[in-house]
């Protein structure tokens, strides 16, 4: 009777896929994440290559060709999505509008991300008085009505792309601070942080090499959410006439300009709003997907 060595039999049952393979499997198994990612990449390419893709100059007015309907409503391929009330090609303005939205979203999220992460990590790592001050600032910031303050400041300083970006960047750091504070607090309690402290690593070193890598996944999720938030806010400000100023092609502004002709030409409102919706949806889907894929409870 041959004796079976117990351990050999079990080897292939134990060796599963590596963490990298599992992550890849989760990413490609997550529909929302993939759809969001693809749409976002496409729109980013459109924004980058706007001059090559746009059939017309987005600023060129043509009073002879005002409010030409889109091709699916009886228009011609000369203006696939028609023209606006000043005869500007709608598709071209839409394509250039992607630049405005994505630029504002990305830069505003970057600014608020730097501010909020610095505050949140400091509060979470040092605790005590630093935490009390940061928590207080978060409370103050949350109490301020964002749309109202942004509108007022932009109105006082004068609406321009730069002003809108900076104002939104300075206003939207709250979620970064809240999430980063909580994540840092969690990571701070782990043994490897204590270990780093014991071997005498400097605080900046611990923050950079022990804390940051372990809160990066949460940070990425907030970046996507705040990017979407900034894009929506810019559109709202521009819609209210107090954001990006004409003739810059901003989707919010296009909705606002089309509003008066909404009764007869609803597509003037529908098209830019729908594109805005799709962009924000894509970013949110990506953010939700990233959260699902990187969530600690999914890791085991």
């Amino acid at each position, binding site marked *: *009777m*041959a*004796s*079976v060595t*117990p*351990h050999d*039999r*079990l080897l292939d*049952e*134990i060796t599963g896929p590596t963490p990298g393979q599992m992550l890849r499997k989760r990413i490609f198994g997550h529909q929302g994440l993939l759809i969001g990612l693809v749409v976002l990449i496409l729109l980013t390419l459109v924004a980058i290559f706007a001059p090559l893709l746009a059939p017309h100059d987005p600023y060129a007015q043509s009073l002879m060709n005002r409010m030409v309907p889109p091709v699916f409503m009886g228009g011609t391929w000369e203006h696939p999505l028609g023209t606006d009330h000043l005869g500007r090609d709608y598709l071209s303005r839409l394509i250039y509008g992607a630049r405005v939205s994505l630029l504002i979203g990305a830069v505003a999220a970057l600014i608020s991300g730097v501010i909020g992460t610095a505050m949140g990590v400091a509060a979470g790592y040092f605790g005590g008085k630093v935490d009390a001050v940061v928590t207080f600032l978060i409370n103050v910031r949350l109490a301020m009505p964002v749309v109202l303050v942004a509108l007022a400041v932009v109105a006082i300083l004068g609406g321009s792309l730069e002003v809108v970006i900076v104002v939104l960047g300075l206003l939207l750091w709250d979620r970064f601070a809240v999430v980063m504070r909580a994540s840092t607090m969690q990571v701070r309690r782990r043994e490897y942080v204590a270990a780093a402290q014991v071997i005498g690593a400097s605080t900046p070193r611990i923050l950079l090499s022990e804390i940051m890598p372990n809160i990066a996944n949460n940070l990425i999720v907030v970046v996507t959410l705040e990017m979407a938030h900034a894009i929506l806010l810019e559109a709202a400000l521009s819609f209210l006439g107090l954001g990006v100023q004409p003739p810059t092609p901003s989707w919010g502004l296009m909705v606002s300009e089309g509003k008066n002709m909404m009764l007869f030409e609803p597509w003037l409102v529908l098209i830019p709003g729908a594109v805005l919706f799709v962009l924000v949806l894509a970013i949110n889907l990506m953010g939700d997907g990233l959260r699902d894929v990187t969530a600690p409870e999914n890791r085991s």
Partner: protein
Amino acid sequence: MTDPLLSVRNLTMDIPVGGGTLHAVRGIDFDLNRGETLCIVGESGSGKSLTSLALMGLLGKGIQRSADRMTFDGIELTKASKRQMRALRGGRMSMIFQEPMTSLNPAYTIGDQLAEALLLHRTVTREQARARAVELLEKVGITAAESRLSQYPHQLSGGLRQRVMIAMALMCEPELIIADEPTTALDVTIQAQILRLLYDLGREMNMAMILITHDLGVVARVADKVAVMYAGELVETGPVAEIFNTPSHPYTRGLLRCIPLPGKTERGKSLGTIPGIVPSLVGSVEGCVFRTRCPHATMECRGAIPQHHDGEHAFRCIFADGKRHSDKELTA
């Protein structure tokens, strides 16, 4: 002999998972008479808790349960309606869980939760229910029972909460009580008290009890019968004395070597361990599940495994004596 209070034949549970089916519990058979205490022992993940939840009809949605027979006082539980099961649960059969810290609802007072157990099954007034609650709190050794009624769970210690859980399980004087590792989450000093209490109350009220534990010291003291579970199977069952005196399945002997027993363990000798890991139960499970860790394993262990009976004592092994007298284990 009268019919047993609880009779289970071929209880099986499957859980569909990503890569197939997890055969979590397979072919469980046992009987339990009124007033008897059955201890189910085994490692975590061996299916002890699933078995108890299956009896109560409290399995999660994804788990498929089947059994040739699963009767409680003649009622076939596999065919009982939801309504019948609800009437049994908390009424004639109760359960005490492992986690007293989280098993009480944080939003309601102790009194409300105790009274609810009675009000759900008996037509009594709130006052009567509260009086019964006070009576049982006193019975489980809680002082100032009256004033505890208006307290919330978070105001009590773990030991007190488990006493409340026991009182709650006893509100309707059940015939069967299932306690799933009721003391694991408690301090060592409290553990003994709670077990003593459960045991005494069980005897006093002539309740049948299923006690799930991995503490063989406890088993030796309270059990009438023992069921040893390994990887979803009952590998050995029998009266407590026989299990301890003539443990027949190699796994049972392994378990017994892991604990010091007065009069059994030799002074100065190190306690045993069981090397190896539990096999995966996903996909088809054939042969003896313990073969990956058994010192006597042979190629035949991959085939069908016979059940050996000796009165009430039964075990599953290809060896008729379970290699009881082999000296191989001592060196393992």
